[in-house]
């Protein structure tokens, strides 16, 4: 049996960089910032560097504190409700900013991003396909 999915957006990512990297715009109130984030189906939430939260005018440490486990350690992050736009698909969700300002990772994870989309990946062609789930 064949299965068919329909997507509104296609992005060819840069194969020279580690991971599947896409441009994303974060918006909180009147402030917004554009950054590069990696798509990570293994991440429960969307996680961004502490500095991006500050640039959005958020008091990062006043957000919802959450502890995450990794393969060999754990880290803390603070949740804030913001909008994320990737290609032309915008979602609003609680995302998390690392408590530790030295962590240099930005990931688009399941809650707040992947769970709002139809998502396709053809890594052989470095191509990502997405659509708003409700459209």
């Amino acid at each position, binding site marked *: 049996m064949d299965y068919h999915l329909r997507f*509104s957006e296609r992005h*060819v*990512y*840069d194969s*020279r960089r*580690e991971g599947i990297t896409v*441009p994303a715009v974060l918006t909180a109130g009147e402030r917004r910032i554009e950054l590069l984030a990696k798509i*990570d189906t293994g991440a429960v939430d969307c996680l961004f560097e502490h500095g991006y939260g500050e640039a959005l005018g958020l008091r990062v440490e006043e957000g919802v504190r959450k502890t995450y486990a990794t*393969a060999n350690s754990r880290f803390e992050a603070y949740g804030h409700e913001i909008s994320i736009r990737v290609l032309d698909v915008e979602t609003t969700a609680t995302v998390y900013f690392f408590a530790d300002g030295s962590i240099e990772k930005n990931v688009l994870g399941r809650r707040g991003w992947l769970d709002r989309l139809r998502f396709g990946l053809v890594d052989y*062609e470095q191509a990502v396909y997405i659509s708003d789930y409700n459209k």
Partner: protein
Amino acid sequence: MIDKRNIVHHSRLTSSAAAGPRSRTPWLGRERGSARSLVALGSRVDSPAAKFLGRKRRVNGCAGSVPVGQIGPQMGTISSRSLEQDWIVQHQAEYAGVWVALEGARLVAQGSSARVVLDAARSKGYEQPLVVHIPSGPELPFGGW
């Protein structure tokens, strides 16, 4: 008369992603020399097939964010930021650990925090630059969480 034995499929000639250092198309290396000369020759030939391939290439072959079925970016669509990513690849050792604001291949601001850099870029008229924290060391393979 064109000798079709030497024609290389257009997708092998134009995929910028495939030409990168992590290419998964090793046959490209062998054909690259002949592909260049064919491209040079092909540019002198005006044929409907060439025009069709050019259109197809713009839709499917270029790195970037292009709504499926449309040619070129739409207003309001986020850029693929491919020029900015080229800049990062070229300058990451030089700017390791620094926050930078980029617009196209241009560095518009740099500093010690995203907020400082974003505000500096906006004061220069760049409303939505790409703001990146250049990794402080070589980007190691990420093993997942």
